[in-house]
């Protein structure tokens, strides 16, 4: 029996880890006597920004880890965040095979699935944003808490950026140190930020880029039977977590709206301009770091915005 030791990038009770647990249960169920996954822990075992390296070194066998947390190792990982297509279509068009060639070489890792897809980042604000003459969202005079992923985008829109760990954002929103943040719909209420937020800006941009991956040596060390079980469970979970996410986001969105958060929806040219700006920045950054695979990846992961 093969035993796979897994580490997650979020604490055990956060939704990402809980969804991962469903995948673990699935494998452990199907893999009785063949392969079992044992979860070691979350970010208390290895600091998040060092998990990509730990995967490369084989400190643990399996990781639930966003590609965006180790862009220094695989800059092409940004294709997942910069993707506006669903993970199943990307897989069907050979996207996972393509990117696995890169992950094998650069990260010593094997991508099993892009999970919890279908959710992007929204801007959440305490102040109403303006619109410039050319129709772009105007965040001048708005201070936003940001992560490196979308910081460049928010700066293009004129926002002033404040870098803060998530735990400090509550007090910052309360006191007006920041006027908002980018975040996916799910998980927002966990931090209690909804108490102070008044606006949600639609559409969402980028896609959460959480992957189930394995250290390549650990992957290749599995028996063929174990490989099949794990890979098939990952493909199944990719789909079911996507579907569950769509439902969850709708429910959460409704709850937040009932709680008094007004949605501002950009449409038509405004929407196009907003999204184009966002995705262009992601793909340009990927190209700047390593242009070799940019075009091939973009052709599969990205659908042109018209």
């Amino acid at each position, binding site marked *: 029996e093969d035993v796979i030791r897994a580490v997650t990038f979020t604490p055990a*009770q956060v939704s990402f880890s809980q969804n991962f647990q469903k995948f673990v249960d699935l494998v452990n169920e199907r893999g009785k006597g063949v392969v079992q996954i044992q979860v070691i*822990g*979350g970010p*208390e075992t290895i*600091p998040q920004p060092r998990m990509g390296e730990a995967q490369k070194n084989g400190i643990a066998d399996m990781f639930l880890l966003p590609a965006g947390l180790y862009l220094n190792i695989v800059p092409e990982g940004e294709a997942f965040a910069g993707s506006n297509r669903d993970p199943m279509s990307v897989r069907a068009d050979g996207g996972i095979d393509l990117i696995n060639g890169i992950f094998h070489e650069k990260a010593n890792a094997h991508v099993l699935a892009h999970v919890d897809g279908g959710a992007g980042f929204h801007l959440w604000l305490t102040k109403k944003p303006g619109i410039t003459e050319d129709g772009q969202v105007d965040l001048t005079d708005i201070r936003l808490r940001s992560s490196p992923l979308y910081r460049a985008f928010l700066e293009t829109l004129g926002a002033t950026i404040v870098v803060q760990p998530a735990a*400090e954002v509550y007090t910052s929103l309360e*006191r007006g140190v920041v006027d908002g943040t980018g975040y996916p719909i799910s998980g927002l209420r966990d*931090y209690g930020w909804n108490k102070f937020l008044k606006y949600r800006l639609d559409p969402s941009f980028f896609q959460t880029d959480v992957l189930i991956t394995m250290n390549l040596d650990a992957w290749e060390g599995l028996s063929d039977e174990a490989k099949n079980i794990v890979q098939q469970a990952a493909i199944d979970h990719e789909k079911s977590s996507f579907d569950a996410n769509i439902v969850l986001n709708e429910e959460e969105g409704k709850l937040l709206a009932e709680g008094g958060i007004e949605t501002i929806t950009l449409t038509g040219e405004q929407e196009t301009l907003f999204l184009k700006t966002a995705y262009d920045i992601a793909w340009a950054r990927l190209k700047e770091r390593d242009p070799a695979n940019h075009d091939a990846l973009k052709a599969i992961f990205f659908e042109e915005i018209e």
Partner: protein
Amino acid sequence: MMDWTLSIAILIGGLMLSMGIGLPVALGFFLINVVGVFLFMGGARGIDQMISNATMAVSTYSLAPVPLFLVMGSLFFHSGLARRVLDAIDVLIGRLPARLSYLTVTSGTVFAALSGSSLANTGMLGSLMVPEMMKRGYKKHMAIGPILGSGGLAVIIPPSTLAVLFGSLARIDIGALLIAGLLPGVVLAFLYAGLIFAQAKLDPEAAPNYEYTPLPLMKRLGIFARDVVPMVVIVMAVVGSILTGVATPTESGALGIVAVAVLALLFRALDWKAVTDAIQDAARVTGMTFLLITASSTFAQLLAFSGASSGLVRWATSLDMGPTQTLLVMALILLVLGMFMDQVSMMLITLPIFVPLAMSLQFDMVWWGLIMLLMLEVSFTTPPFGLLLFVMHGVSPPGTTLPEVARAALPYILCVFLLIALVILFPTLATFLPSLM
């Protein structure tokens, strides 16, 4: 994988041993880290990972208050402003024994209500108050204890970064958890005051009541206007900037430094030597504290990675017990883990197991969360790993040993235990304010 009891015996036993024989604490941590990495992280490649993890430990913005408040405090001291202010306060308050200890608790409570960070609180009070208190002949524990005590207050009196994190991880209403800490926080401050009163009564030498000549009221007011009012500027720079949203508590130390520097200039107390001394002191203490944090955070990761800590938690919570016993066992686990780990790691390890357990026992989650937060507060000052102990040791008078600092903290930890007992006996203490929301 090794049995968790063996892992725990090796890691914690090894740590105690390497410290006990007298190795510098940071190197003792590193020694056992290397041993642990070979056992649990797969040998040499694990060492590279440990080195890499170590670069993350202090390169995090939330530790910025350490150098900032240390510079602020040591500048305040070396420029002689501290002496002016405390002289003035001496004259104003008059005969009250141990008045500077009370002053520390009072200002600690006020600052706790402004900052969310125990580190900021201790760093500021420690560097502001200790050097002058020592000069006035206070015994060490009368200076160190109140600061460690009120440093922990920052955790339960809102705002509190730790409470927010706790609330979000445990899915407890964050607003309710924050407000629930207010009343117990004030009670705790009074317990501290009572403790100081008792300590000063039992040992009058601990806080000497030096020569004092009563001054006429006008003269007192004059001193107040000259020496104390300007200091309000410093307080405003730190506190006001936090309150108005100009700066986060993390950043507020920088504005405090600017305020101290400007005031020192105005009082013609700022010379080159004061500035260089202040910076050197701050750098020394920062370097020492950060090396300890680096070494011990890697240790905490090993403890988690090896399955030792989660094994302990699972075992202890699997014992079938009644609600009160379970609550006490949870508190005991936090006490034990808190000796070796930082608060965030502790929450990450325990909450996935504690939360469902607490819910199944139908605890009021806000009440329960507050008790857990109080235990997390205690872990800041329990040896061998206590973040506030390290910072405090750094700003303590020459010759102070780590055990001395820990002993000074002990009665204050007992006060927290007393408060926990009160919260258990009278849950209203925690639930009253949230119920008004």
